[in-house]
């Protein structure tokens, strides 16, 4: 009986692999690319930015790629199943576009050594898992510069998603930009404890405005904050994508996540047989941590500000591009007066991922 079962099983396995072989070979010409989204492109933020990247891939490769997208995939067992399914369907490279897909991506990658996986914003890699990330904080430095020049109340309201290193380094970069032009202004932070919840984000924005903030910044995904700013005559910055359609009078500019060139590069590498995971340092940054200079972060049009401010902001952009501005250059002092690094030194990338303190210019202390 057992023997019989074994035979049936092996027969099944054999026929399945034959079918798989035939299927994958007959569609060998276009490169099959899979994307996993956390929410839907309708968030107008994080996932929308990935959608724009995907559209750039479509434009660039046309019929040479066949793209499958799965949206609204929760960061748990469903992710493992969906990623495996994409792998089984013969996708040759799979982009998993949220931090929480880290373990699921690695798990599935182990089972499919010939498929390439690209985990966005993760820090764990393997032979066939590469990681990519953006230096979001560079855009926040420029936001700080603009905020410092535009604020009248010297109160900046900042909405953070979670007190993790990525968000904290953004707040600190903002503070560095702010203090480079205005030593009197300071930042207050409200934690939304969510990446995407328009209601909570709007509430936080209202609180900031009630407390006298006239410039708002956010590290959450929806346009809700800007809509509140628009209604109350405050100003603010767009997140991940250009949000000026939601707040034409309030958006100063948006830091846009530009994933397209990265996706295109990695797909080209795959087609030329040159795909690799790189050998970057093993911190959270990922193999590829690009910013303004590599065009992975772009700055949308400066608006709702005098030309003089726009000019200063432009200078800051160029400074970051050509390296003359080092955002986290010493002397750095945290907001309790403790020295982080002395003059002449600069925080390295690894140190950024260990940030659990606020720099001078930020009120309060990091929770947790």
């Amino acid at each position, binding site marked *: 009986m057992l023997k019989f079962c074994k035979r049936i099983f092996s027969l099944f396995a054999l026929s*399945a692999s034959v079918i798989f072989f035939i299927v994958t070979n007959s569609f060998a010409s276009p490169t099959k690319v899979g994307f996993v989204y956390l929410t839907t492109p309708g968030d107008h933020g994080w996932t929308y930015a990935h959608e724009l990247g995907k559209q750039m891939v479509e434009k660039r490769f046309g019929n040479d790629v066949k793209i*499958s*997208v799965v949206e609204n995939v929760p960061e748990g067992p*469903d992710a*493992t199943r969906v990623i*495996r399914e994409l792998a089984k369907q013969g996708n040759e490279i799979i982009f998993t576009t949220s931090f929480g897909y880290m*373990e699921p991506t690695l798990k599935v990658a182990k089972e499919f050594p010939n498929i390439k996986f690209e985990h966005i914003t993760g820090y764990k890699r393997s032979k066939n898992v590469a990681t990519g990330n953006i230096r979001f904080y560079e855009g926040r430095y420029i936001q700080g510069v603009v905020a410092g020049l535009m604020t009248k109340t010297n109160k900046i309201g900042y909405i953070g998603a979670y007190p*993790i*290193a990525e968000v904290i380094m953004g707040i600190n970069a903002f503070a560095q930009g702010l203090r480079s032009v205005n030593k009197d202004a300071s930042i207050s932070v409200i934690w939304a404890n969510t990446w995407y919840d328009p209601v909570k984000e709007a509430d936080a924005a209202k609180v900031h405005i009630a407390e006298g903030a006239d410039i708002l910044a956010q590290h959450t995904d929806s346009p809700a904050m800007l809509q509140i700013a628009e209604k109350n005559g405050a100003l603010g910055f767009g997140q991940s994508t250009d949000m000026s359609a939601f707040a034409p009078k309030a958006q100063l500019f948006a830091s846009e996540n530009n994933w397209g060139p990265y996706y295109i590069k990695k797909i080209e590498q795959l087609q030329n047989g040159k795909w690799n995971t790189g050998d970057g340092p093993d911190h959270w940054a990922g193999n590829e941590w690009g910013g303004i200079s590599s065009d992975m972060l772009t700055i949308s049009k400066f608006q709702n500000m005098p030309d003089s401010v726009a000019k200063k902001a432009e200078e800051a952009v160029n400074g970051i591009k050509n390296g003359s501005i080092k955002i986290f250059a010493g002397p750095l002092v945290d907001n309790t007066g403790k020295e982080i690094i002395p003059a002449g030194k600069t925080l390295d990338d690894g140190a950024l991922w260990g940030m659990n303190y606020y720099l001078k210019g930020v009120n309060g202390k990091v929770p947790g």
Partner: protein
Amino acid sequence: MITFTPRDKVSNYWTLIGPILSIILTVIFGLLIFTFLGFDPAETLYQIFISPFSRIDRVSDIFVKACPLIIVGIGLMFCFKANVWNIGAEGQFIMGTLLAGAFALLFPNVETKLLIICMLFIGFIGGALWAFIPAILKTRLNVNEILVSLMLVYVAMLFIDFIVRGPLRDPMSFGFPLSKPYPEGALINKISFPGIGYLGQLHYGILFIIFLIPLTWIFINKTLGGFKINVLGSAPKAARFAGFSKDKITMTVLLLSGGLAGVAGVIEVSANIGQLQPEVSFGYGFTAIIVAFLGRLSPVGILFAGVIIATVKLGADNAQMTMGIPKVVTGLFEGILLFFLLTGETLQKYKIKWSWNK
């Protein structure tokens, strides 16, 4: 005014035809919607209903997805049979997971699977304790258990969030709210079949269902305890005359359903996630309410209901992958399916009278 009066006798003929008719109506409406939105309707229905069965590893994924739904659903069955409305299984799921997970993390190097056995018990206790709050308030002070159990869901969500951000956060997680990975002994392994290897995510946690279903069937149909629950639910007065303690039964069913929700959480996380994170449940506790009713509050029915719901969810993902149908559309379809199934069932049990009284 619409009035529902219970039918004296439910016709056998309609119990059989009802669900089939519901499915046919769903399919017709589905065809209309998909055609209207410009998707090939036949292909879409194939993706949603058939494609999850098209490969053996996909079939096993259905059971993986259905596993927590079935376990929580069976727990809720006890409550709903006794007319006790536990809406907070989601919270009990979370608290069971959290307590068992915290226990597992005390033993970072344990490899023996004894640990996971302990965790199942602790998970049961954790879930039951969380259900104890609405239970004691209900029995002592007659506080509405619907409100208490539901509100405690949000307390549980924020509590696990706090715990994985603070006390249990892995120092190596780069500030991300994740606990350390569970030790080997706390993990539920995938089942390796001779000659095939793993089938999708199929894990040993499924065995729990295989024991749970016959056991609950026997308990409900063949024991005095099950009888008491049935009587309290269907004829509260009779229960009182028979001397069954309403408070005792209420307490028992709430603890049972809370405990089972906790166990479901332990199995889900130990088999599929392997560490604590802010979100462990993804709405299983709420979906299981639908599963319990769709399964007509019987263990075998709940098994099928869990499989149906899981199939449609997986099918929706497949439809998205192969045809690019957005989840909102397949979600709409799911809603239509549930609407017809539950309406069909109501019509079998109740006569409907329309009247235009002022």
